[in-house]
């Protein structure tokens, strides 16, 4: 028992050091980082104008797919929060690039799990991002408070937080799996382009997935990308409730687990296949 505790303490010390160093590294290029973080808020303004124009311009409809204009804009703002958790910019491409250049072997000779390292590194990136982006996010939500009907009840809020955390895990392991494909193909940029295209439409980033007509609506609500943006936002707005909410959270957990296994399997076979390119 003591040995197990000691081992766990030692692992925690390693994880904390990796996290700390990744945060330090993230803060080196502070100007670029701050600018990149702040510029991500610009599309919110354009999207707000767009959907306002769709609804009120030329006597538009009062609701689309069960969403009013205010709900549409609130939905869009919430997908921004969800994507702040689930998007993993550069993760897959950097794994593939490190495989191609041979840089990845430094992780293979050290007594450390590559996936754990990448996970902690990404966690550090997110923590720094939240630290910088929380204030602008709060300001945007304050200015747009009129689009919301108020805070949801505590269970809905808890489900929303849980879905956000799972969207982070799902986003990480999904992109890590794509990156591991680099062990086979070396160059995965085209694959990533296709993935980003699908992600753009089927994660619900652009519009609530329920506005699609059948059978597309049913199809997209069975695929994992919906959990990266649509599902957390819909949970917050109370569009998914009761048994559907539990079912949705279980579905999200199942997809997350599936991609944990996929990433681990791809890494296991990928490392076996690895030829250590780049001298």
């Amino acid at each position, binding site marked *: 028992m003591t040995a197990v505790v000691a081992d766990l303490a030692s692992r925690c010390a*390693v994880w904390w050091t990796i996290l700390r160093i990744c945060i330090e590294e993230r803060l080196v290029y502070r100007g670029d980082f701050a600018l990149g973080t702040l510029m991500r808020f610009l599309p919110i303004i354009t999207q707000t104008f767009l959907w306002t124009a769709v609804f009120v311009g030329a006597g538009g409809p009062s609701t689309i797919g069960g969403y009013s204009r205010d709900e549409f804009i609130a939905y869009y703002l919430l997908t921004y929060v969800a994507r702040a958790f689930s998007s993993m910019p550069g993760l897959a491409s950097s794994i593939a690039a490190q495989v191609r250049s041979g840089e990845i072997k430094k992780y293979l000779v050290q007594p450390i799990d590559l996936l754990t390292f990448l996970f902690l590194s990404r966690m550090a990136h997110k923590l720094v991002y939240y630290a910088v982006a929380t204030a602008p996010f709060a300001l945007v939500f304050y200015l747009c408070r009129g689009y919301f009907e108020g805070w949801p009840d505590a269970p809905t809020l808890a489900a929303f937080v849980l879905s956000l955390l799972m969207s982070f895990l799902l986003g990480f392991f999904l992109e890590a799996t794509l990156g591991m494909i680099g062990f086979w193909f070396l160059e995965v940029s085209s694959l990533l382009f296709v993935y980003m295209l699908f992600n753009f439409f089927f994660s619900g980033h652009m519009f609530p997935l329920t506005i699609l007509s059948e059978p597309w609506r049913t199809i997209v609500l069975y695929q994992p990308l919906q959990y990266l943006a649509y599902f957390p936002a819909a949970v917050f707005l109370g569009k998914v409730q009761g048994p559907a909410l539990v079912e949705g959270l279980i579905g999200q957990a199942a997809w997350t687990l599936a991609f944990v296994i996929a990433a681990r399997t791809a890494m296991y076979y990928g490392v076996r296949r690895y030829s250590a390119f780049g001298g």
Partner: protein
Amino acid sequence: MSVVEIEGLKKSYRVYQKNEGLLASVKGLFHRTYKEVEAVKGIDLKVEQGEFVAFLGPNGAGKTTTLKLLSGVIHPSGGTARVMGYVPWKREHAYRRRFALVMGQKNQLWWDLPAQESFRLHQQIYRIDAKDFDRTRDELTELLQVRALLGRPVRELSLGERMKMELIAALLHSPEVLFLDEPTIGLDVVAQHNIQQFLRHYQEVRQITILLTSHYMKDVAALCRRAVIIAQGQIMYDGSLAGIVDRFSGHKVVTLAFADDEAPDLSHFGTVVESHTPKIKLRVDRPKVAEMLATVLRDHVVSDVSVEDPPLEEVIADMFQSAEASLATNKS
């Protein structure tokens, strides 16, 4: 038991063969031809504890591939290898805590952070006791004279300073086996000398086992007693450094300086390498050296004479060329 035991180790790669031109590129979209390249062709090797062994060979000979196999970075196509009893490509944490790999062309430190941050991370990853870590880091930074640079971002260090930091990072966990892949590549002579001195001292004190690949014969001559020469994935020689010259060089280099500014024609004794009156340097077959010297000393007034083995680089280069020529002949 030997620290490194290799039997029939093989590694082959499947390499895409692309012809020149746009048409070939388009054809490559539909049909590709691959070639099996045997980087390591069934080598056998044993290295004992405390040995400092040089892996020599031309580019593409299989040296780095062998080190990658032994460090578990890649899986072999055949054969077996054990390092300290571990099968490297199983990549057990217990094994990875006992060896280190330093590649001169690859940076393992965090580029944008000071080296001391990477060292701290290594302390945790390798589970080094805090006191041991402080002692080892201080000792290594003193020996390599880089203590003042610990707080400087790695990207702002010179190549030589960076390589010193790489070595420290690799040695913090006191590995029992060290794989060095061209650790002095690109360094100036002073930095090369410093690294050589450090490695020699460290190996003598710690008695660790080191396998070194290098194209700099000065590294090899300064550090290693044993050399393993690999060409085209096969071991061509395994023995002492001195033995390379004895075995593979059939000639000596004779330098003569004549007293009366004369420059006699000595080409019938061997190949004239340099001739600047009154000095002449020539390559003479070993059996003929005694006869040549007797004749020249009898017929001419000689002010200075030296008989030397040819430079190690030259012998090895000749050896590589003849090995490649003979392998090419066997293939055809």
